């Protein structure tokens, strides 16, 4: 019996031991992942977010008739056929909010008021303004101050804010940030536009701040020009302020990045190779390049032996041999017997596509804000009298030269020579001196802006709506747009499902979540 008592005793000890330790002593440590990155230099988040979204071939470039998907394949039915398909309107939203916005918001949160990261903080503010400007331009009312704050402030259903209000705040953000940039402050080496490893690299904060001031002021110029229809006097003041602050003056100021084509590829161009049989250059754009014998044309367009296999098929890049798919026409009409169109070729249509070895190469550079864009905006501003220095013609011609010089950056290109540039500039359809009225000049400038922004759809789409140029014919397929153009992208359907209340309020304020509602600066 004594032995049994022994056991009982031991069991009692067992129980006491079990209780005594508590039962969750090391749980916090156990629930900490030793391999996860939980702390990060906000400069690296900023660098990641600099690769922000600039539009897709299937959306913005199609709306401005540079590109077309002339087939009704259900899922790919989209702007080419005036259809409001969710998947076509979403990329700008999804990639902006789910990418740049949340990284920039998080980076600002991590920096806080740290004076040692003053320049980084202000670069982020400027770049965040760029991202939101694109969102307002694309959708109108969008989530702004609440956006990207699920983690920092537990805001899961952000409110949509009037675009005009956002623009006012973007103005404040950019101007404040510009004022706070400090040549004696921190050097942000990670900056992929002007940092240590950038194409237009700098190695001192003084040099870097100069570049960022130019970038910030060029963005401010872009912002001011957006008011040209809705509030010219406000636009004029902002433009003058930006110009006085100092905008980009050469390609060495460009905010751009370059892909290596193997490890990092330009995803939008890579996508173009899939389903290539459905992807074509649009007639108005091809005709513009052909009519002016544009030396950029051979790098933009190509006629492939088999449009269904652009990755491997031989290409003809002679400009005269390029044909664009007419707007509002679909493949069954093109290939129908006795059709007035060019019919089929290989597994696709007998039309030109984007040149997959140059402009549409996975190794193409991506331009965000450039001297060429800036100089064209200055040309218009000068013509409007919003700035008083320089000549509109010089700004215009310098912009074109600068853009042509940028083609050096595309793979497989040979530098466009100054004489080619001069020939182009004296083409009757390009020559500034032949234009007499303001409207003729605006058309010249903004048609060039359209060509310059062949890979920045957000900008091409915004400027087309603002300036009304190039002079395009509306796509009348099914006449779903009442004889007009697409004026904005529609909100993701997921927003209607998930963020219903805010979505409905915003849609109502816009006059409906459709392709014909207008963003605030786009008054008829």
């Amino acid at each position, binding site marked *: 019996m004594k032995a049994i008592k022994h056991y009982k005793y031991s069991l009692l000890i067992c129980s006491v031991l079990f209780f005594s330790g508590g039962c969750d002593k090391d*749980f916090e440590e156990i629930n900490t992942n030793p391999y996860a990155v939980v702390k990060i230099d906000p400069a690296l988040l900023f660098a990641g977010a600099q690769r922000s979204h600039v539009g897709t071939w299937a959306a913005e470039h199609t709306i401005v008739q540079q590109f077309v998907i002339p087939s009704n394949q259900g899922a790919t039915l989209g702007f080419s056929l005036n259809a409001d398909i969710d998947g076509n309107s979403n990329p700008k939203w999804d990639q902006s909010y789910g990418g740049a*916005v949340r990284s920039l918001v998080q980076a600002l949160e991590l920096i806080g008021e740290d004076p040692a990261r003053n320049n980084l903080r202000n670069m982020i503010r400027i770049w965040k303004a760029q991202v939101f400007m694109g969102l307002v331009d694309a959708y109108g009312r969008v989530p702004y101050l609440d956006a990207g704050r699920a983690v920092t402030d537990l805001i899961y259903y952000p409110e949509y804010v009037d675009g005009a209000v956002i623009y006012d705040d973007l103005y404040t953000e950019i101007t404040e940030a510009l004022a706070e940039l400090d040549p004696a402050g921190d050097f942000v080496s990670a900056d992929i536009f002007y940092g240590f490893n950038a194409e237009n690299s700098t190695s001192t904060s003084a040099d870097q701040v100069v570049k960022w001031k130019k970038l910030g002021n060029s963005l401010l110029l872009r912002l001011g020009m957006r008011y040209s229809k809705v509030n010219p006097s406000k636009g004029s003041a902002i433009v003058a302020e930006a110009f006085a602050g100092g905008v980009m003056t050469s390609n060495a100021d460009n905010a751009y990045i370059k892909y290596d084509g193997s490890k990092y590829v330009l995803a939008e161009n890579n996508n173009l190779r899939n389903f290539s049989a459905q992807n074509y250059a649009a007639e108005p754009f091809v005709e513009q390049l052909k009519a002016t014998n544009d030396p950029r044309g051979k790098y933009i367009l190509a006629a492939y032996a088999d449009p*269904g296999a652009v990755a491997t098929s031989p290409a003809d890049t002679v400009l005269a041999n390029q044909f664009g798919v007419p707007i509002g026409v679909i493949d069954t009409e093109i290939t129908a017997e006795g059709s007035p169109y060019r019919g089929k070729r290989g597994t696709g249509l007998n039309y030109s596509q984007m040149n997959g070895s140059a402009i549409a190469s996975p190794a193409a550079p991506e331009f965000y804000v450039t001297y060429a864009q800036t100089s064209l905006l200055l040309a218009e501003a000068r013509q409007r009298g919003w700035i008083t220095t320089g000549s509109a013609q010089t700004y215009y011609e310098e912009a074109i030269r600068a853009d042509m010089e940028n083609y050096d950056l595309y793979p497989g290109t040979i530098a466009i020579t100054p004489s080619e540039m001069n020939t182009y500039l004296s083409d009757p359809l390009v020559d500034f001196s032949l234009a007499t009225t303001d409207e003729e000049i605006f058309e010249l400038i903004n048609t060039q802006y359209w060509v310059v922004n062949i890979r920045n759809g957000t900008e091409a789409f915004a400027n087309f709506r603002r300036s009304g140029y190039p002079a395009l014919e509306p796509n009348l397929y099914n006449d779903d747009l009442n004889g007009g153009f697409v004026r904005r992208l529609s909100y993701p359907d997921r927003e209607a499902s998930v963020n219903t209340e805010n979505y409905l309020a915003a849609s109502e304020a816009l006059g409906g979540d459709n392709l014909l509602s207008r963003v605030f600066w786009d008054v008829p």
Partner: protein
Amino acid sequence: MSKCHLSIYASMLLFFVVCQHSVAFGGGDRTSISPPLLQQLTISGKVTDETGATFPGVNVVVKGTTTGTATSADGTYSLDVSSDAVTLIFSFVGYAQEEVAIGGRTTINIALTPDVTSLNEIVVTALGVQKESKRLGYSATTVQPDYMITNRTTNMMESLEGKVAGLNITPPAAGAGSSTQIRLRGQAAFAGGNNSPLFVVNGLPLDQAAAGANGNGQVEQRDRGDNLQNINPDDIETMTVLKGATAAAIYGARAANGAIIITTKSGSKNQGIGVDFTSSYTTSHALNFMDEIVQTEYGAGQAGVRFATQGAVQGNGQWGWGEKLDGVPTVNFDGVMRPYSAHPYQLFDFLQTGTNFTNTVGLSGGGTNGSFRASFSNTDATGIQPSNEYKKRIFNIGINQNITSKLKLQLNINYANEENINPPQVGTQGEGAVNFFNRMPINTPIEAYRDNAIDPNLGPTFGSEYKTNGFLGTINNPYYQLQKKQFFLDEKNRLLGTATLRYQLTDWLYAQGRYNYDRGTNFMEWNVLNGAGATTVLNADGTFRGRYDIRQIESTDINADFLIGGNKDFGKFSVDASFGGNTWRRNSSTNQQYARNFVVPDLYSIKNGTIFGVTDPDNTGYQPYSISETRINSLYGWAELGYNGLLYLNVTGRKDWFSVLNPADNSKFYPSVSGSFIFSELLADQAWLTYGKLRSSWARVGSVNAVNPYEGVLTYSINPPFNGQVLAGINGTGAPNPSLIPFTITEKELGLEMRMFNNKVLLDVAVFDKVTTDQILDVSISNASGYNTTKQNKASLKNSGVELLIEATPFETNDFKWTTSWNNTYLKTEVLDVGNESGTILLIYFNGTTAPANGNEFLGELRYTEGLAMNQLYTRTYLRNEEGEILVTPTGRLRASTGGPINTGYFPIGSSIPKYTGGWTNTFSYKNLILGVFIDYKFGGMVMSSTLLNMTRQGHSKMSLGGREGGLIIDGVYDNGEPNTSVIPVASLQGHYSDYRNLQIGDPFVFKSDFVKLRTISLSYNFSSAIKKVEKLNFVKGLTLSAACRNVAILYKDLPGLDPESVQSSGDFRAGYEGSALPTTRSYNLTLNVKF
């Protein structure tokens, strides 16, 4: 190691030391206490049954010890007992247990009488504790293992579909090694957590861990099986389904969805050495219902015109909007002219007969102090999809040993090795034979796809998939995969080991310690071909396309527990109480790597690549090595009070501490109380009533199974250098929430059990009500917040229902017996609260491309909506006017509904969860021949058919025939009420039928998922008595041959073209959505069982 674990391990260790001590030094202790040596005496005797016949296999145990034996074939026994032994207990299932005082006798003979009230009396309950069923205040159903052997399925749980009230089993049609969906009393939580019950194998808790085909991507589009594949039905001795929360309360968080307790065989004492051998062969054949939907009149083409050139076919060959089939030679994708005629059942030409050959050999034995069984089983199966093979080997050992008269060791080891080779790609618009054949026109014979899968043209396309259509990448020729050897290998090894030591401290008190070790490794290896779904094998940078992946997952689950329990009678009262503790620690690690952009074609290896997982800028969240570690520590106890065999009251309590939760609030207490009232004790004069019990219970359990370790903290990805500059981003699309708490399930149950008319009729009814609150939910949030989802404690739901079991023996003679059994479950589910103002939560948007609400399957939504049943399917409908007429556009085209309860035009159309499930079993036995006929059914659920939508919008369904000659006028009206007269011309039919997809009009694609199936017919013959007559064969103790046919016929269904059970996934995310799963199969099985 935490202090807590130290203490638990210390307890375990101490316990073992104490026990060891008693073994090694017990004698010494005794000599020091009391000089009188205990004598050994031998008691022997004979046991007979109620007819006086010898009774083999009766257990004879000295009360209060583990000393015991069993009677041999002639009914005799012999047992060495110490002189202080007082009482012997004789027991046999189905007979009244007898306690006999020894009183100095050395010969004790006894006759046992049947105890009709105690059939199925002993039930294995939580923690392996065996209880008389009358003491239970909750529902526990015992499953007969024989049924699983006769009606064998590769995954043993599949054979139980429809067999147990409250247990809803849904096997996906996803290949030979696939998982099953197992839900007890409904789906307790929204999708995202583990909603299947806990399995407890010899005391080892095992999650089902179903790896169903739940999404896109090479891994997620395949069903990689579940843990039940590791259990061989031939090894199962008992299986008990503990349906309610009370039954499971003692297992805590892991058993929030109930528990299924499995005990495997470990031989029986005094039986000598025996060998049993089972051999089973099954063939499976795809069931074809396609003639219900496929059109056989029109071939490939567009706008009513067939394609004229090879290029046109390659560019648009997926469309079936061509001309009436006329047999005239017409160009195909490969440039060959073939008659324009119908080959409508290509999928079924592509599929093959599946087979399964399983052999099990078992060796068992038992002496006076212990018994064992060891078995080995080998399964070789092939799926109905070519190249799908499934092999498994299971090695099982069970040992029971009395180390001393008071100390008992039980050891169980189960080792399983599984190889799942090329599990089919299902439920995805992309790769996979089903998606290809259902979506291609019918005028190209399958031989063309087979013989020209690889592009033969020399040049840049050489070696890539020969382009068959314009959706290359989405609709891919499966022969290309087969011929270029795309592979997906999934090999698993799993060791389950349990050691239990039980020490009988006194005749009323015992202590038990147990250690469970569960070690698994899973190696996966797969490739994507250089030229799959593409017109080139090359990347832009000149390297070869494709990808090669390897993944190795290692996991260790350790459960260590102790239990101290005792029971004692005080006059008419009895008390049974226990106290215990458990620590569960799970560690797993994943090693993975991949390579792409290959240097050498057709070679899939890491070294052949130029971009690797760790350096891939397109995959910045990729972790080549990751770990996961969780712990749950628990303390628990229970007490049972009994009064005179008439009333029992049971109280349990358990507290769990969770490592995955915020330390500020990381524990949860689960109480339960239950009672039973054996009212038949008071109605002894009612002869018709043999046994009657009323039971009632209340329990609260909870779970954190939707919370993963580490996910409360935001993490960053470091991306490879971009032109020399390292970039960073934020990982994942879920916003971390560090303040989650366990969700709670509160369940009430009331039950009645009656055996009547001399045990010829049994009735078991249960009514339950189960409410889940504070659910842990992946709430979809606006992605303008930067994230797509966040986990929150939100929402509550209710599962309530009635379970009914009626068993009867309507007819019985000496030779013939008919037993019939009907079980039925009525399940009502209701979402009570979703935690937001709109009253609805989107789970998945099937037409979307934004993860995780990414269906990419084109139609409808799955939502949880307050006041509606769970898993509510939504779709837009035709736009109708107040009179209910369909409204069309001025040009006579379709319009989609607008407004509605969520203002998006989407309307709820019903739940995917069936309201009624059940089965009707009939067993006819004549002498040694047994015929089993089993019918089962499910009613009250809805399904959306992606197959029909896609076949319609592409011109392959009967529905798409409308308007082929002369165009279509939709039967509708204009806004002004005038009848529609606008003709949709033939050239625009494709656009019209695409409108269903583009506008999301679901009306024609929504069906009931109801079915009634003649599930199995089985016939078995027991040759044992025949063999006994032949003296030379007397070494054979038993021989049974059985044949079975499974899925004999579908007696009723609503979904056209498919079996409503041909679902893609065993998960909850794509519930109610039919899309590109394999056809279900009918199987024929022959099984031989021999015992020596």
